[in-house]
Protein backbone atom coordinates (compact mmCIF):
# COMPACT_ATOMS: atom_id res chain seq x y z
CA UNK A 1 0.00 0.00 0.00
CA UNK A 2 2.95 2.34 0.52
CA UNK A 3 4.15 2.07 -3.06
CA UNK A 4 1.10 3.78 -4.70
CA UNK A 5 1.31 6.55 -2.14
CA UNK A 6 4.96 7.17 -2.93
CA UNK A 7 4.17 7.32 -6.64
CA UNK A 8 1.52 9.93 -6.06
CA UNK A 9 3.90 12.88 -5.74
CA UNK A 10 5.62 12.47 -9.13
CA UNK A 11 2.23 11.89 -10.77
CA UNK A 12 0.73 15.02 -9.25
CA UNK A 13 3.84 17.04 -10.10
CA UNK A 14 3.70 15.88 -13.70
CA UNK A 15 0.04 16.82 -13.91
CA UNK A 16 0.84 20.25 -12.46
CA UNK A 17 3.72 20.85 -14.84
CA UNK A 18 1.71 19.62 -17.83
CA UNK A 19 -1.24 21.77 -16.84
CA UNK A 20 1.03 24.79 -16.41
CA UNK A 21 2.79 24.33 -19.71
CA UNK A 22 -0.44 23.63 -21.58
CA UNK A 23 -1.87 26.88 -20.19
CA UNK A 24 1.25 28.67 -21.33
CA UNK A 25 0.90 27.35 -24.87
CA UNK A 26 -2.76 28.35 -24.97
CA UNK A 27 -2.24 31.99 -23.83
CA UNK A 28 1.22 32.64 -25.29
CA UNK A 29 1.12 36.15 -23.82
CA UNK A 30 3.60 36.80 -21.07
CA UNK A 31 2.66 40.35 -20.27
CA UNK A 32 1.95 43.83 -21.52
CA UNK A 33 2.34 47.44 -20.48
CA UNK A 34 1.25 50.79 -21.86
CA UNK A 35 1.78 54.51 -21.61
CA UNK A 36 0.18 57.58 -23.09
CA UNK A 37 1.73 59.56 -25.88
CA UNK A 38 0.20 62.93 -26.72
CA UNK A 39 0.72 64.70 -30.02
CA UNK A 40 0.05 68.43 -30.11
CA UNK A 41 0.21 70.59 -33.20
CA UNK A 42 0.52 74.33 -32.69
CA UNK A 43 -1.16 76.86 -34.94
CA UNK A 44 1.43 77.39 -37.67
CA UNK A 45 1.21 80.24 -40.15
CA UNK A 46 4.09 80.87 -42.50
CA UNK A 47 4.58 83.20 -45.43
CA UNK A 48 7.69 84.08 -47.38
CA UNK A 49 8.93 85.26 -50.73
CA UNK A 50 11.83 83.56 -52.45
CA UNK A 51 13.35 86.87 -53.56
CA UNK A 52 13.75 89.83 -51.24
CA UNK A 53 13.93 92.59 -53.81
CA UNK A 54 12.69 93.10 -57.34
CA UNK A 55 13.83 95.72 -59.82
CA UNK A 56 11.45 96.82 -62.53
CA UNK A 57 12.83 99.03 -65.23
CA UNK A 58 10.89 100.49 -68.09
CA UNK A 59 13.16 100.22 -71.08
CA UNK A 60 12.93 101.00 -74.76
CA UNK A 61 11.28 97.70 -75.50
CA UNK A 62 8.43 98.67 -73.16
CA UNK A 63 7.63 101.74 -75.23
CA UNK A 64 5.48 101.98 -78.31
CA UNK A 65 5.93 105.12 -80.35
CA UNK A 66 2.80 107.18 -80.28
CA UNK A 67 1.50 105.70 -77.01
CA UNK A 68 1.67 107.53 -73.72
CA UNK A 69 1.44 104.35 -71.64
CA UNK A 70 4.60 102.39 -70.95
CA UNK A 71 4.46 99.10 -69.07
CA UNK A 72 6.79 96.50 -67.69
CA UNK A 73 6.06 93.23 -65.91
CA UNK A 74 8.03 90.97 -63.62
CA UNK A 75 7.08 87.44 -62.66
CA UNK A 76 10.40 86.24 -61.30
CA UNK A 77 9.46 85.86 -57.65
CA UNK A 78 7.35 83.35 -55.78
CA UNK A 79 5.21 83.59 -52.68
CA UNK A 80 5.20 80.50 -50.48
CA UNK A 81 2.85 79.85 -47.60
CA UNK A 82 1.78 77.26 -45.10
CA UNK A 83 -1.07 77.41 -42.64
CA UNK A 84 -2.81 74.73 -40.64
CA UNK A 85 -5.70 76.97 -39.70
CA UNK A 86 -8.94 77.22 -41.61
CA UNK A 87 -10.44 80.32 -43.19
CA UNK A 88 -7.34 82.21 -44.22
CA UNK A 89 -6.41 84.56 -47.03
CA UNK A 90 -3.40 86.61 -48.11
CA UNK A 91 -3.56 90.35 -48.46
CA UNK A 92 -1.05 92.75 -49.95
CA UNK A 93 -0.18 96.39 -49.42
CA UNK A 94 2.62 98.87 -50.08
CA UNK A 95 4.21 101.36 -47.74
CA UNK A 96 4.46 104.00 -50.47
CA UNK A 97 1.61 106.40 -49.93
CA UNK A 98 2.05 108.50 -53.05
CA UNK A 99 3.82 106.60 -55.80
CA UNK A 100 4.65 108.46 -58.99
CA UNK A 101 3.74 105.48 -61.14
CA UNK A 102 1.09 102.84 -60.83
CA UNK A 103 2.11 99.34 -59.68
CA UNK A 104 -0.21 96.37 -59.95
CA UNK A 105 0.21 92.91 -58.47
CA UNK A 106 -1.45 89.58 -59.13
CA UNK A 107 -1.09 86.00 -57.92
CA UNK A 108 -0.39 83.67 -60.83
CA UNK A 109 -1.10 79.93 -60.84
CA UNK A 110 -1.58 79.33 -57.10
CA UNK A 111 -1.13 75.67 -56.19
CA UNK A 112 -3.97 76.01 -53.71
CA UNK A 113 -6.50 78.69 -52.96
CA UNK A 114 -7.87 81.18 -55.43
CA UNK A 115 -6.11 84.18 -56.91
CA UNK A 116 -7.89 87.49 -56.37
CA UNK A 117 -8.15 89.92 -59.26
CA UNK A 118 -5.11 91.99 -60.13
CA UNK A 119 -4.93 94.95 -57.78
CA UNK A 120 -3.28 98.35 -57.92
CA UNK A 121 -1.12 98.58 -54.84
CA UNK A 122 -1.98 101.07 -52.15
CA UNK A 123 -1.35 101.44 -48.45
CA UNK A 124 -4.66 99.70 -47.79
CA UNK A 125 -4.48 95.92 -47.56
CA UNK A 126 -6.18 94.29 -50.51
CA UNK A 127 -6.99 90.64 -51.16
CA UNK A 128 -4.28 88.77 -53.03
CA UNK A 129 -5.16 85.10 -52.47
CA UNK A 130 -8.36 83.64 -51.09
CA UNK A 131 -9.28 80.32 -49.48
CA UNK A 132 -5.83 79.14 -48.49
CA UNK A 133 -6.99 77.59 -45.21
CA UNK A 134 -5.13 74.46 -44.06
CA UNK A 135 -2.78 74.24 -46.98
CA UNK A 136 0.71 74.91 -48.15
CA UNK A 137 1.44 76.21 -51.57
CA UNK A 138 3.02 78.74 -53.81
CA UNK A 139 2.22 81.15 -56.57
CA UNK A 140 4.15 83.42 -58.86
CA UNK A 141 3.95 87.12 -58.03
CA UNK A 142 3.37 89.23 -61.10
CA UNK A 143 4.10 92.93 -60.79
CA UNK A 144 3.04 95.23 -63.59
CA UNK A 145 4.25 98.81 -63.57
CA UNK A 146 2.49 101.48 -65.59
CA UNK A 147 4.15 104.77 -66.41
CA UNK A 148 3.00 107.50 -68.74
CA UNK A 149 5.48 109.29 -70.94
CA UNK A 150 3.89 112.48 -69.70
CA UNK A 151 4.95 111.54 -66.15
CA UNK A 152 8.58 111.81 -67.13
CA UNK A 153 11.45 109.93 -65.57
CA UNK A 154 11.86 108.89 -61.96
CA UNK A 155 11.65 105.96 -59.60
CA UNK A 156 9.43 104.48 -56.89
CA UNK A 157 10.61 102.20 -54.10
CA UNK A 158 7.85 100.08 -52.60
CA UNK A 159 8.07 97.82 -49.59
CA UNK A 160 5.37 95.28 -50.31
CA UNK A 161 3.88 93.39 -47.38
CA UNK A 162 1.97 90.15 -47.84
CA UNK A 163 -0.05 89.06 -44.83
CA UNK A 164 -1.98 85.93 -43.94
CA UNK A 165 -5.16 86.91 -42.20
CA UNK A 166 -8.59 85.61 -41.36
CA UNK A 167 -10.92 85.46 -44.31
Amino acid at each position, binding site marked *: MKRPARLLFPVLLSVYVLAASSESVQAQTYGSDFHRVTVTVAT*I*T*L*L*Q*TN*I*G*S*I*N*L*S*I*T*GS*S*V*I*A*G*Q*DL*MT*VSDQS*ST*LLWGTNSSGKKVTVR*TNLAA*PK*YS*LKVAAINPTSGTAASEVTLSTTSTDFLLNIGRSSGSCA*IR*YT*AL*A*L*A*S*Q*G*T*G*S*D*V*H*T*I*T*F*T*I*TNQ
Partner: protein
Amino acid sequence: MKPKRISILLQVLLVFVTVLALLETAHAQGASARQVVTLEVLELNRIDINMMSLTLTIQDANAQAGITIPAANSDGVLFWTTNGENKKITVASSNASPRFELKLMAVDVTPRAGVPVPEIIFNDTQTKDFITGVTKTSGRCQIRYTASAPIQAGVGRETYVITYTITGS
Protein backbone atom coordinates in the same frame (compact mmCIF):
# COMPACT_ATOMS: atom_id res chain seq x y z
CA MET B 1 7.61 101.19 -1.53
CA LYS B 2 9.10 98.09 0.06
CA PRO B 3 11.90 96.34 -1.85
CA LYS B 4 9.87 93.12 -1.97
CA ARG B 5 6.95 94.88 -3.66
CA ILE B 6 9.29 96.52 -6.16
CA SER B 7 10.78 93.12 -6.95
CA ILE B 8 7.31 91.60 -7.56
CA LEU B 9 6.33 94.56 -9.71
CA LEU B 10 9.49 94.20 -11.78
CA GLN B 11 8.88 90.48 -12.22
CA VAL B 12 5.31 91.09 -13.43
CA LEU B 13 6.58 93.77 -15.80
CA LEU B 14 9.26 91.40 -17.13
CA VAL B 15 6.71 88.67 -17.81
CA PHE B 16 4.43 91.18 -19.55
CA VAL B 17 7.25 92.48 -21.75
CA THR B 18 8.37 88.93 -22.59
CA VAL B 19 4.84 87.91 -23.61
CA LEU B 20 4.52 91.02 -25.77
CA ALA B 21 7.88 90.31 -27.42
CA LEU B 22 6.93 86.71 -28.13
CA LEU B 23 3.63 87.77 -29.68
CA GLU B 24 5.38 90.34 -31.86
CA THR B 25 8.03 87.84 -32.97
CA ALA B 26 5.43 85.27 -33.92
CA HIS B 27 3.57 87.85 -35.99
CA ALA B 28 6.69 88.97 -37.80
CA GLN B 29 7.92 85.46 -38.49
CA GLY B 30 4.73 83.76 -39.40
CA ALA B 31 2.01 85.87 -40.79
CA SER B 32 3.69 88.26 -43.18
CA ALA B 33 6.40 88.50 -45.78
CA ARG B 34 8.04 91.57 -47.24
CA GLN B 35 9.51 92.34 -50.62
CA VAL B 36 11.09 95.55 -51.85
CA VAL B 37 10.05 96.48 -55.36
CA THR B 38 11.93 99.27 -57.10
CA LEU B 39 10.50 100.74 -60.26
CA GLU B 40 12.82 102.85 -62.34
CA VAL B 41 11.79 104.83 -65.39
CA LEU B 42 14.73 106.14 -67.38
CA GLU B 43 14.53 108.59 -70.28
CA LEU B 44 12.97 106.86 -73.22
CA ASN B 45 12.56 108.14 -76.77
CA ARG B 46 10.78 106.19 -79.41
CA ILE B 47 9.91 107.10 -82.98
CA ASP B 48 8.30 104.98 -85.66
CA ILE B 49 6.69 105.25 -89.04
CA ASN B 50 3.94 103.15 -90.53
CA MET B 51 5.11 103.14 -94.13
CA MET B 52 8.59 102.11 -94.99
CA SER B 53 8.46 103.08 -98.66
CA LEU B 54 6.27 104.99 -101.03
CA THR B 55 6.44 106.23 -104.59
CA LEU B 56 5.46 109.61 -105.94
CA THR B 57 4.86 109.75 -109.69
CA ILE B 58 4.69 112.99 -111.64
CA GLN B 59 2.61 112.15 -114.63
CA ASP B 60 0.73 115.26 -115.65
CA ALA B 61 1.51 118.77 -116.77
CA ASN B 62 -0.22 122.05 -117.28
CA ALA B 63 0.39 122.86 -120.94
CA GLN B 64 -0.80 126.45 -120.63
CA ALA B 65 1.44 127.17 -117.64
CA GLY B 66 4.26 125.06 -118.96
CA ILE B 67 4.83 123.22 -115.71
CA THR B 68 4.39 119.70 -114.43
CA ILE B 69 1.66 119.03 -111.89
CA PRO B 70 3.18 118.07 -108.51
CA ALA B 71 2.46 114.66 -107.00
CA ALA B 72 1.51 114.42 -103.30
CA ASN B 73 1.22 111.62 -100.79
CA SER B 74 -0.09 111.77 -97.20
CA ASP B 75 -0.35 108.06 -96.48
CA GLY B 76 2.57 107.94 -94.09
CA VAL B 77 2.05 108.46 -90.35
CA LEU B 78 4.84 109.30 -87.94
CA PHE B 79 4.56 108.28 -84.24
CA TRP B 80 6.70 109.35 -81.34
CA THR B 81 6.88 109.00 -77.58
CA THR B 82 9.28 110.55 -75.12
CA ASN B 83 9.29 110.95 -71.38
CA GLY B 84 12.24 113.33 -71.64
CA GLU B 85 12.11 117.09 -71.86
CA ASN B 86 13.02 119.56 -74.63
CA LYS B 87 13.13 117.09 -77.47
CA LYS B 88 12.58 117.63 -81.19
CA ILE B 89 12.12 115.51 -84.25
CA THR B 90 14.53 116.11 -87.09
CA VAL B 91 14.58 114.85 -90.62
CA ALA B 92 17.37 114.28 -93.13
CA SER B 93 17.56 113.10 -96.73
CA SER B 94 20.20 110.86 -98.22
CA ASN B 95 20.09 112.66 -101.55
CA ALA B 96 22.81 115.33 -101.61
CA SER B 97 21.91 116.92 -104.96
CA PRO B 98 18.43 116.01 -106.04
CA ARG B 99 17.40 116.34 -109.65
CA PHE B 100 13.73 116.85 -108.80
CA GLU B 101 12.16 118.64 -105.84
CA LEU B 102 10.80 116.85 -102.77
CA LYS B 103 9.06 118.73 -99.96
CA LEU B 104 7.86 117.49 -96.56
CA MET B 105 5.26 118.83 -94.16
CA ALA B 106 3.71 117.56 -90.92
CA VAL B 107 -0.08 117.53 -90.98
CA ASP B 108 -2.55 117.02 -88.15
CA VAL B 109 -0.03 116.92 -85.33
CA THR B 110 -1.46 115.64 -82.06
CA PRO B 111 -2.27 118.63 -79.85
CA ARG B 112 0.42 119.42 -77.29
CA ALA B 113 2.70 116.78 -78.78
CA GLY B 114 4.97 119.24 -80.58
CA VAL B 115 5.10 122.18 -82.97
CA PRO B 116 5.60 121.49 -86.69
CA VAL B 117 7.94 123.67 -88.69
CA PRO B 118 6.86 125.04 -92.09
CA GLU B 119 7.37 122.90 -95.18
CA ILE B 120 10.85 121.46 -95.62
CA ILE B 121 12.60 121.19 -98.99
CA PHE B 122 15.07 118.32 -99.38
CA ASN B 123 17.80 119.95 -101.41
CA ASP B 124 20.76 118.52 -99.49
CA THR B 125 21.63 116.00 -96.77
CA GLN B 126 21.53 118.44 -93.89
CA THR B 127 19.46 117.52 -90.84
CA LYS B 128 16.49 119.80 -90.47
CA ASP B 129 14.05 120.37 -87.64
CA PHE B 130 10.66 118.82 -88.35
CA ILE B 131 8.74 119.04 -85.06
CA THR B 132 10.00 121.01 -82.10
CA GLY B 133 8.86 121.47 -78.50
CA VAL B 134 8.46 117.78 -77.79
CA THR B 135 8.40 117.27 -74.02
CA LYS B 136 7.08 114.28 -72.05
CA THR B 137 4.53 113.39 -74.60
CA SER B 138 3.40 110.99 -77.25
CA GLY B 139 2.01 112.03 -80.60
CA ARG B 140 1.50 111.41 -84.25
CA CYS B 141 1.15 113.30 -87.48
CA GLN B 142 0.55 112.64 -91.14
CA ILE B 143 3.60 112.99 -93.34
CA ARG B 144 2.80 114.85 -96.52
CA TYR B 145 5.38 114.55 -99.30
CA THR B 146 5.05 116.73 -102.36
CA ALA B 147 7.20 116.06 -105.41
CA SER B 148 7.60 118.43 -108.32
CA ALA B 149 9.85 118.49 -111.37
CA PRO B 150 10.80 121.44 -113.57
CA ILE B 151 10.24 120.78 -117.27
CA GLN B 152 13.94 121.12 -117.90
CA ALA B 153 14.68 118.28 -115.40
CA GLY B 154 13.35 115.83 -117.92
CA VAL B 155 12.28 112.33 -117.04
CA GLY B 156 13.87 109.94 -114.62
CA ARG B 157 13.73 108.34 -111.20
CA GLU B 158 15.21 109.41 -107.88
CA THR B 159 15.37 107.67 -104.53
CA TYR B 160 15.44 109.45 -101.19
CA VAL B 161 16.10 107.75 -97.89
CA ILE B 162 14.45 109.99 -95.31
CA THR B 163 15.54 109.57 -91.68
CA TYR B 164 13.44 110.85 -88.78
CA THR B 165 15.17 111.23 -85.42
CA ILE B 166 13.94 112.25 -81.99
CA THR B 167 16.73 114.09 -80.26
CA GLY B 168 17.57 116.72 -77.70
CA SER B 169 16.90 120.32 -78.64
